[in-house]
């Protein structure tokens, strides 16, 4: 809805000297803001000047640019907020966008800053109180008086809502050291005189700490952890917003020389607050390079190294140029000199010749973690700068990214002794479940139940050996022509089986990164002694590489076939989906048609009937197609059934009597002594669709033996004899036809247009499938 704009608007004055050009003057409420302009075609406008403080304008600043006449989209960013507006630049005119036109663009920080847009300090009792407390308070000594307490920490919390009533004593907020020992239980500290805030101060040994606070929301509670590094000879000031509990995501941080206290009216403090907010975004560099006052602060005598840290991160995130490179290099030199032990400084200077490595503590700013990660990725193998088992190495899985800070969540109660930064362990599943999710749908990876006699297997096999047999079943299933009578597998030992695969081949063909494959192989090798089933603890270590091996083998077959083919069409059937997946898809679409049939509000009665008929038809086609698929069963050398494929698994799951079916299968297959056998379906399962219609089942057996010829197991393929075996061309066509069926069905369900056309198209596709499946 177009509305004539209200409130303060841009104004123009004629400047004849501009000729055909136009000038834009962009005022913003604060000199730490960042501005950007794009033209009518979204092209960035170059040549925007740095923001200069407005004379008599308090904290406001302005930037200028000359442009061709036209419409421009102007963006201002401050404290994590972004606003844009269209401005018309007229030829021969100077157009000024007043700071007041940016409604609500303000620097939001938990620091009690003494500055405001109009230069008048805000009415904030915390400003004066923090200034007083940070200079007057005698910090508590928490350690042995003999220990060198060369760092000082102030914490200030602004209380709002429930926190005023319950107060800090009800909170669980602690400072723990690198060993996980409690350095300070902060909430026990005496509250301040005013009930609108809370403060405490401590003298501590310099070093790494974690601020750990229990946070609550409507639905859950958890511990949020925030690393802090206290530098010797410096004070660190932490500010938080608190409601029902302290909110670490709102943390502001600042540093000053010991004894200086917090200076709420200091430009460096304000700049640090603004840069922290900007660092949560992608182009924080503009906040430094686009503001003259910011640059002035950084080039002058820097009494606030934390501003240097933030500015260095901001500049590192933007495109390098000679001017900023010079400033950045100077900042890094300053930081290395003043606080070279700080993890953020170490992260910032990783690529410098005199970098402090190895790294042991996580940087306070998340961008530092990204720098370390990028450095690791680029470093040659074996030159990982991160100390094994260090606090830094343990940070990773539980990171939360709702601010610029490095922070992670712990969900279990604190025990006070837990290593700082140790993430919660991830529960593991059984290996087979994971494999089933990772492998081709046709793989026989589903363990069969107790009735099959699996538990009584005479010769327990290692996990790797069983994988080798599963892999053999895959090759038998996918072989062209007759099912082989025997297949040889290499079971010379888990190590050989698992680790003799060529890593590069696995990585290349399976599409998994070589580094990842190497790592997984390494982890498998480390745990090789424990690779017996069932040991779910190994699942995480082995599943990736096993899946990669499977995929590699499968794809290697594809690649070898593909290389001998002349054109795509004949090769495509090698990429075909297992029939059971098509069956599943057809049943899904039948289900969709039933849902549609019941949606009386959007269909005519005739369309509703048509949808119902199509549901029945697709179900019928699914059943026919399912008959074309093969059940795969793997048995051990004594005939105990070990694994089945997904189709068998799903069919058993849908039965009331799976144990009975397995028992019948066990008896029938265990007694089979020939390669091919035809049995009545009702012998195996009287209530199955095949059993009910009196069909016969063809069973093909392949003997699995090792290099010495010793029988290691059997692979059985079962298929209804009255069902067609699909040709490669038909499989290829199925791959095209099923997505078309899905598209028509989904269009009938969700499309804005009349469903009749989609239902008719779906009927045509079903007709084609019907013809294909007719024997």
């Amino acid at each position, binding site marked *: 809805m177009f509305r004539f704009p209200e409130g303060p608007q841009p104004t123009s004055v004629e400047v004849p000297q501009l000729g055909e050009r136009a000038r834009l003057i962009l005022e913003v409420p604060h000199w730490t803001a960042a501005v950007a302009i794009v033209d009518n075609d*979204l092209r960035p406008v170059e040549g925007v000047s740095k923001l200069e403080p407005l004379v008599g304008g308090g904290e406001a600043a302005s930037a200028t640019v000359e442009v061709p006449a036209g*419409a421009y989209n102007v963006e201002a960013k401050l404290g994590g907020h972004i606003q844009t507006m269209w401005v018309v630049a007229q030829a021969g005119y100077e*157009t000024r966008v007043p700071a007041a036109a940016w409604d609500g663009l303000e620097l939001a920080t938990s620091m009690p800053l003494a500055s405001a847009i109009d230069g008048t300090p805000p009415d904030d009792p915390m400003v004066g109180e923090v200034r007083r407390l940070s200079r007057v308070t005698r910090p508590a000594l928490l350690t042995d008086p003999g220990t060198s307490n060369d760092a000082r920490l102030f914490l200030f919390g602004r209380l709002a809502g429930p926190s005023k009533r319950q107060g800090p004593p009800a909170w669980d907020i602690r400072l723990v050291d690198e060993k996980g020992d409690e350095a300070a239980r902060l909430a026990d500290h005496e509250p301040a005189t005013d009930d609108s805030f809370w403060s405490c101060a401590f003298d501590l040994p310099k070093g790494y700490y974690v601020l750990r606070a229990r946070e609550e929301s409507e639905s859950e509670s958890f511990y949020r952890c925030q690393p802090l590094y206290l530098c010797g000879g410096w004070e660190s000031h932490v500010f938080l917003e608190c409601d029902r509990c302290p909110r670490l995501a709102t943390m502001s941080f600042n540093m000053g020389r010991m004894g200086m206290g917090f200076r709420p009216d200091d430009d460096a403090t304000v700049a640090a607050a603004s840069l922290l907010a900007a660092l949560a975004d*992608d182009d924080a560099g503009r906040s430094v390079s686009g503001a003259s006052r910011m640059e002035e602060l950084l080039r002058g005598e820097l009494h606030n190294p934390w501003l240097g840290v933030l500015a260095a991160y901001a500049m590192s995130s933007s495109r390098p140029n000679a001017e900023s490179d010079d400033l950045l290099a100077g900042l890094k030199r300053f930081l290395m000199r003043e606080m070279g032990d700080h993890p953020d400084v170490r992260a910032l200077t990783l690529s410098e010749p005199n970098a402090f490595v190895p790294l042991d503590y996580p940087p306070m700013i998340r961008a530092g973690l990204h720098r370390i990660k990028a450095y690791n990725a680029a470093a040659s193998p074996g030159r990982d700068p991160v100390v094994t088992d260090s606090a830094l190495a343990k940070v990773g899985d539980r990171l*939360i990214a709702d601010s610029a800070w490095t922070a992670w969540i712990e969900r279990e109660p604190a025990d006070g002794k837990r290593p700082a930064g140790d993430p919660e362990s991830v529960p593991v599943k059984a290996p087979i479940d994971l494999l089933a999710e990772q492998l081709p749908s046709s793989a026989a990876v589903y363990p069969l139940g107790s009735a099959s006699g699996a538990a009584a297997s005479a010769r327990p096999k290692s996990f790797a050996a069983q994988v080798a047999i599963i892999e053999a079943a895959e090759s038998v299933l996918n072989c062209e022509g007759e099912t082989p009578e025997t297949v040889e597998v290499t079971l010379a030992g888990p190590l050989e089986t698992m680790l003799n695969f060529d890593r590069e081949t696995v990585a290349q063909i399976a599409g*998994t990164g070589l580094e990842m494959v190497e790592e997984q192989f390494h982890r498998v090798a480390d745990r090789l002694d424990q690779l017996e089933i069932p040991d779910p603890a190994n699942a995480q270590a082995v599943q990736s590489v096993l899946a990669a091996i499977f995929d590699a083998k499968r794809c290697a077959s594809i690649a070898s076939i593909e290389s001998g083919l002349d054109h795509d069409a004949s090769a495509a059937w090698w990429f075909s989906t297992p029939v059971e997946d098509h069956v599943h898809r057809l049943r899904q679409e039948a289900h969709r048609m039933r849902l549609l049939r019941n949606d009386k509000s959007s269909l005519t009665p005739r369309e509703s009937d048509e949808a119902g008929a199509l549901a029945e038809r697709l179900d019928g086609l699914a059943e026919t197609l399912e008959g074309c698929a093969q059940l795969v069963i793997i048995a051990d050398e004594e005939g105990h059934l070990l694994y089945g494929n997904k189709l068998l698994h799903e069919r058993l799951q849908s039965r009331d009597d799976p144990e009975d079916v397995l028992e019948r299968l066990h008896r029938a297959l265990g007694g089979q002594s020939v390669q091919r056998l035809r049995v009545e379906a009702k012998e195996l399962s009287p209530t199955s669709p095949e059993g009910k219609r009196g069909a016969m089942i063809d069973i093909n057996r392949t003997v699995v033996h090792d290099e010495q010829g010793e029988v290691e197991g059997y692979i059985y393929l079962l298929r209804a004899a009255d069902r067609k075996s699909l040709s490669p061309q038909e499989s290829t066509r199925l791959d095209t036809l099923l997505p078309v069926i899905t598209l028509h069905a989904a*269009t009938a369900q*969700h499309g*804005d247009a009349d469903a009749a056309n989609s239902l008719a198209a779906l009927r045509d596709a079903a007709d084609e499938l019907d013809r294909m499946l007719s024997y």
Partner: protein
Amino acid sequence: MTDADRHPPPPGGGLPPQPANDDTGQNEDCALVVAIGNYRELTPLRGPGPDAIRFCTWLREKGGLKIENIKLVDGNEPGRPVNSEIVDALVKLRIRMNKRRGRRLYFYYAGHGLGPTFNDVAIVPADAAQGMLVATCYGLNQCIDYFVKTGFFDELVVFMDCCREREEVTTIPLPFKFERPFENARGQVNHFTLLAAGDGAKSFEVRDLTPAQERKFRGIMTMALIDGLNGAAGAIDSNNNVTSTSLARYVATRVEEEARINQLDQVIDKPKPPQQEIVFFTIPPAQVPRIELRLIIGPQTAGQEIRVQNLSTLAMDTREGQPEGSVITVTIEGNARYQLILPGRQPVVIDPAIIASEPNDVPLP
């Protein structure tokens, strides 16, 4: 929102800029359309299914794609579709053949998303579990990287209608490893991405639908996207093309406007222009939509001359002063931005993209 259809596309059909699929298959355009709404543990979404179908319909009717080149990945049961179904669809597009497949690949996604980094999107599969998202979601950047490096298609167009709330999950790449550019790949891949939400932000579905409108459930971004692709006013450039630039600008403006009307906070990610402009659709000149603005003269503008200028052609429409309360009707073309010039005031930009209903009454000062 009940006025989702108030921004009608131009009447009749338009023209795709060039044949999307020629007889030789050299110019084949393909699409992978992923709709995930049936989350097993996360909040289910109703918009992805209908939205994906709207996009598929555009692909077929206006984008010029063959139906068999559109791979729709969706699911009707909780926990579907999963990652392997996305991979399966790519395999069906013959990604394993290591050969250039065609001119353009569209990738559309509607579902839950996360923002693992400021410039990435994690695609959350339907079987994802709360608190166990590590190494579960495909990372958009890694997917784009693969397509750009391989040259599977000459152009890659990505539309993502999902949230990007910050959660530092480790994303996973597609299970294909880049070795070398695909056979017959044609140099640098031109890619264009439009994300429904900025870094750390949410995207929304329309709200407050009546039961009869349930089938019209849709995401705000997709609503704007489809209208834009169909050539809505404000989405067309001065050459009457819906291009990557004009579409991006339209969707950004429209989403912001619709979100504002619905009291939601959604701003699309600032799109980066592709290396070469992509033309999605061309509108015949006679079908360029026109919009009537009713300027209602206020006390300060009574008796003053009012001018409306087309910023593309610079054509000026000048009206004599009128008494307070009278109405001046101005027609603007949907393929240009205008400025409203009132004496003694800074001109105001009129973007057709935000004029979403007619008659559009604009009270003047």
